């Protein structure tokens, strides 16, 4: 676990990953998912461990970086920091921006470190359980993952489910991996190999964001001045320690479930902090418990989301889907076998995540004031530069012009999806799980001799199907209850 500290190469990946992640997190509209996808092509020049350390550091620091923008300009740098705005900005307006950021930094660091311990404890356990899984169980697990994503993700479960199904449909483009028959290739040779993950991610996140920014050019940010970050006082700690602990637990748990990780975790962390608070009336007016609740939860989701990613090869969030792609590009196949065959590699990742949390704490405390200045870059300069990086990065992986077309098409599609309330995250997860879903379904049917009912003879499959149905029904039951009460 200490490898990233004692190797210059690994420490450099950790250091620059944290730095880049922090800057990407601060810039509204970017964030660890887009940032990870943009950095991915550069990781090809690195060895697998350095590459994954770079990506995971971006993930940890990017999730924290969003809080700086949330507190100072009332705009979340990342969606996961949306709940931080609710109390961070009002507190900053009272002249306590340094205190608000100090609390956000401490809560984020604690949540992040806590989640690494959850990762170290639970990922090997989950991998051990997954050893017993056959093709039908993996199929049921992937379905469960998608329904959870639909259920607890942002927005309407039906829209999320549609987006997930669309993502799986996109994964069917190209030659059928079992029979080599062309599907949805429209006679275009470049599509025979299927649609790559990176152009879709860059399109859905970066290009769609550029189009969104083009509709908000007259937006004015009310920036709050920051003198220096102030660490929480003894009284502050007394008030927030329970909230931090609770939110860390909530965040790590939500992170393990395949969903939008930090975003959902921070909202639940915030609402639970309010529910348990002795002063709930202060929420929305600059409550430090609100800041701590949201920030501890979103950073705790990072380690949680890595649990299914590493143990099962099923991403827990959009950013972990990018990390999963990074692993695959470098020839590392996540899943139970990884824990048996390459424990050093895994502990290197765990260690990097732990130190990334410590490092962003130091960067945050010492340099938040400087980092916050990146928000001063005007959009009319920032987005053309991001576009240049996106185009070159997308082209570099497959060296095919088709990827640039795909990036632009998915960018426009992503814009309209977001405009009409469809989350783009399920598309990403669906795309990455598509092959697993179809492959395991078809292999299961071979095992079952084409009899679909045989799925129901396996207890784990029944359990996952039951949980999937519950996951789909829960939001409606909750809504009905809320309406009737």
């Amino acid at each position, binding site marked *: 676990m200490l490898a990233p500290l004692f190797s210059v190469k690994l420490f450099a990946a950790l250091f620059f990953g944290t730095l880049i992640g922090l800057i990407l997190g601060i810039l509204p509209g970017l964030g660890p998912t887009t940032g990870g996808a943009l950095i991915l*092509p*550069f990781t*090809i*020049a690195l060895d697998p461990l350095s590459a994954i350390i770079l990506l995971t550091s971006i993930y940890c620091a990017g999730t924290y970086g969003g809080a700086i923008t949330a507190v100072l300009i009332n705009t979340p740098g990342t969606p996961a920091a949306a709940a931080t705005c609710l109390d961070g900005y009002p507190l900053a307006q009272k002249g306590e921006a340094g205190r608000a950021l100090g609390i956000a930094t401490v809560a984020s660091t604690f949540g992040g470190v806590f989640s690494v311990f959850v990762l170290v404890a639970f990922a090997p356990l989950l991998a051990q359980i997954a050893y017993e899984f056959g093709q039908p169980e993996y199929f049921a697990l992937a379905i469960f993952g998608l329904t959870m994503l639909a259920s607890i993700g942002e927005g*309407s479960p*039906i*829209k999320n*489910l*549609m987006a997930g*199904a*669309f993502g*799986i*449909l996109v994964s*069917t483009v190209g030659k*059928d991996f*079992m*029979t080599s*028959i*062309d*599907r*949805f290739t429209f006679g275009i040779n470049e599509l025979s190999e299927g649609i790559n993950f990176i152009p879709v991610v860059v399109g859905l996140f970066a*290009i769609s964001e*550029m*189009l969104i920014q*083009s*509709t908000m*050019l007259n937006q004015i940010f009310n920036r709050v001045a920051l003198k220096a970050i102030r660490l929480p006082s003894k009284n502050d700690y007394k008030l927030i320690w329970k909230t931090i602990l609770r939110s860390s637990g909530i965040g790590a748990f939500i992170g393990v479930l395949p969903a939008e990780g930090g975003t959902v975790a921070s909202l639940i962390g915030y609402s639970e902090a309010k529910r348990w608070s002795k002063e709930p009336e202060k929420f929305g007016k600059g409550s430090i418990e609100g800041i701590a609740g949201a920030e501890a939860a979103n950073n705790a989701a990072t380690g949680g989301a890595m649990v299914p990613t590493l143990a099962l090869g099923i991403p827990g969030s959009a950013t972990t889907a990018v990390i999963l792609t990074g692993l695959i590009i470098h020839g590392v196949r996540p899943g139970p076998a990884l824990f048996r065959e390459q424990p050093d590699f895994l502990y290197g990742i765990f260690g990097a995540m732990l130190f990334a949390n410590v490092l962003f704490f130091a960067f945050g405390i010492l340099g938040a004031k400087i980092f916050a200045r990146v928000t001063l870059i*005007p*959009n*009319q*300069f920032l*987005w*053309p*530069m991001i*576009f*240049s*990086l996106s*185009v*070159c990065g997308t*082209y*570099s992986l497959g*060296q095919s*012009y088709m990827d*640039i*077309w795909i990036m*632009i098409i998915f*960018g*426009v599609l992503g814009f309209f999806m977001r*405009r*009409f*309330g469809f989350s783009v995250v399920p598309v990403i997860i669906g795309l990455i799980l598509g092959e697993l879903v*179809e492959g395991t*379904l*078809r*292999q*299961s*049917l*071979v095992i079952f001799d*084409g009899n679909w009912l045989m799925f129901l003879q396996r207890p784990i499959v029944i359990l996952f199907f039951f949980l999937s149905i519950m996951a789909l029904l829960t939001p409606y039951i909750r809504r009905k209850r809320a309406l009737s009460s």
Partner: protein
Amino acid sequence: MNDKNKNKGRTENIFPSFLKTDAFIVSAIIVFSSIVLFAITLNFAKVPPILNRGIQPATFPKILLLFIMFLSCLNFVLALQTPWKSHMSLPKTFYHTLFILLIFSLISKNIDFFLGLAFLSVAITMSWGERRIIPIFFVSVIFPLLVFLLFEKMLNLRFPGGLLTNLYYY
């Protein structure tokens, strides 16, 4: 003027109000696209039973498309009870940006990759309100050049040939 109002009234009567909602338009587009894709799956080649692993290659996409169509209809029905949030119309800058993306694709594919990037950077920066020459020059010439060198030197990536790129390569 009166005739115009009369015509307007007629169109409103012909089309019930729910047909003009975002929920209906979005659902209709999704269902229509799914039907087209479903029709395409009917032309997928079939494998003989001996090679057929469980199901035909077209079966899985068909199931997905039917599922998407079902959800789309359900979504529309639910939107009748709880209407979607209404949106402001899109500003001109959005359409400008979209048009610039299209022109970029044409230039970068047919003339030169970096000329396309330079065009896009100049056009977006100006269309989004910037008029200062030096920052525009940095964003549209210096930055793409730095990115080019970064990818070329660090990743040994060879970019597609073109009017400007060939000057570097040859």
